[in-house]
């Protein structure tokens, strides 16, 4: 498996080619291009309204771009333009090979059904039909995201914010996706919980060799998790590069402002 991944690394997993999106006269996203390779973590940083979330939706095929295209290398090794995928294929991709971690866990979880069923849903959606095996896999994933297995039958609405977020991650990773989109996964959590979550994410990403596109306004998150950083402003990518390079030696005035606005510890 590891060998296969090595071979695969030659080809990018996800390619964005001059992506644009405008809402009427407002250009939310302008001419964004990049390639993402498997096992690579890309952080998209920028202030509110800079087009980060729009870009994430374009990349994950939830929004149709006004210009440009996104292609994804499917499990069979063939790269396909997301716009040419049928809805059934796109949705299948979304619940097997992709993950999407929302900022608000209530959007990504079914709050009224048990944690076990939340994790098991994707498995059942791809045809698992054995209760015992689904439950074992769900328990296994709860352990991996540090949730007490005794709480497998509790609904996520009885969980704390940090647990909900970890459950959401387990639910996404259970089908062993190759690409995960994350929209501010640590937003709204207190710092100690954030630190634990980031730690968990970092180990899972390394262990599963995940490619991740993570949108965040928190530069600390970008520094901890990502290999590369894209800085966005007004819908454009104004600076891109290796994480430490961009954050330690920012070139653009806006990036310098962003970096310097972090309070020194």
């Amino acid at each position: 498996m590891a060998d296969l991944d090595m071979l695969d690394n030659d080809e990018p997993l996800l390619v964005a080619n001059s992506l644009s999106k405008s809402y009427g006269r407002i250009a939310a996203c302008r001419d964004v291009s990049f390639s993402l390779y498997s096992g690579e973590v890309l952080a998209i940083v920028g202030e509110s309204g800079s087009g980060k979330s729009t870009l994430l939706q374009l990349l994950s095929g939830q929004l149709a771009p006004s210009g440009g295209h996104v292609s994804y290398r499917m499990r069979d090794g063939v790269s396909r333009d997301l716009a040419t995928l049928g809805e059934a294929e796109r949705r299948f991709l979304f619940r097997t090979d992709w993950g999407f971690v929302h900022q608000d866990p209530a959007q990504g979880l079914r709050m009224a059904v048990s944690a076990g069923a939340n994790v098991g849903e994707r498995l059942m959606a791809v045809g698992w039909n054995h209760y015992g095996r689904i439950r074992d896999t769900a328990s296994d994933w709860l352990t991996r995201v540090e949730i007490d297995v005794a709480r497998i039958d509790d609904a996520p609405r009885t969980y704390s914010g940090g647990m909900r977020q970890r459950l959401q991650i387990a639910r996404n990773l259970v089908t062993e996706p190759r690409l995960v989109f994350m929209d501010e996964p640590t937003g709204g959590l207190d710092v100690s919980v954030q630190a634990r979550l980031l730690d968990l994410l970092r180990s899972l990403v390394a262990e599963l060799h995940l490619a991740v596109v993570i949108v965040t306004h928190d530069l600390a998150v970008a520094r901890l998790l990502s290999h590369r950083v894209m800085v966005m402003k007004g819908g454009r990518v104004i600076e891109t590069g290796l994480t430490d390079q961009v954050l330690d030696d920012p070139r653009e005035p806006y990036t310098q402002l962003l970096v310097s606005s972090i309070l020194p510890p």
Partner: protein
Amino acid sequence: MNAPAYNFAYLDEQTKRMIRRAILKAIAIPGYQVPFASREMPMPYGWGTGGVQVTAAILGPEDVLKVIDQGSDDTTNAISIRKFFAKTAGVATTAATEEATVIQTRHRIPEAALHEKQVLVYQVPIPEPLRFLEPRETETRRMHALAEYGLMHVKLYEDIARFGHIATAYAYPVKVNARYVMDPSPTPKFDNPKMDNCPALQLFGAGREKRIYAIPPYTKVVSLDFEDHPFEPYRFNAPCALCGAENSYLDEIVTDDKGSRMFVCSDTDYCEGRQAAGHHGSLSAAPYKERAQETSNG
């Protein structure tokens, strides 16, 4: 004052044509919910407005109508609907399952085996099996279109996680013709196996929700389950207190305020037929008991 002149079977012919078109489409796509322009009927929603419209659309002057409510021919709902069609269509009515050509039902499938010359019309309150799991109609339609039914198993999973077995006892989801997941209306899951490969045409009408769906004769109907928790029809383990039947679906009747109860067949026609044939149970009324004794003595 003159008596109101109803069209045959109450609905006007154009409305019946519209409903028949929906029925034909439903038969062509087994298990698929066909929207139709449901009319107001002279009865409240929840009393079978969908079933009544389907019955009105398929009824002919030669038909013999049977109406049951929870298996019973003599409850308010069943009697009212039977009288309604006796008055507006002048068709013959019956309580005997074998004699009927159209059977409108609420919550049961008759115990007697149905045959090819019969149509079973179900009254359906909530046609969408995914409703309580996915509140958006746009989303459930898309899920049906793409046959994404993982969510249905989430419900069954929850049952097992909470109760140790699949506790859904009625409206148990089925897959029709290996394609559409369908809500069999709130029939007990005891009745689910009867839908499979049934010689009679089964039509489902939901008046408030404006949907018609169908199972054509001899169609495969499979109840959803897990490999390690297979589907099991549920029946209270007792013989009928009136006719002694061991394999019919039972109603529980509370007989006093001290916790006494009796279990009797919910299908009254079946139970009466058995009693008339000399079967009796632990609480049979005297005449039947005597007759039974007479027959056994003589």
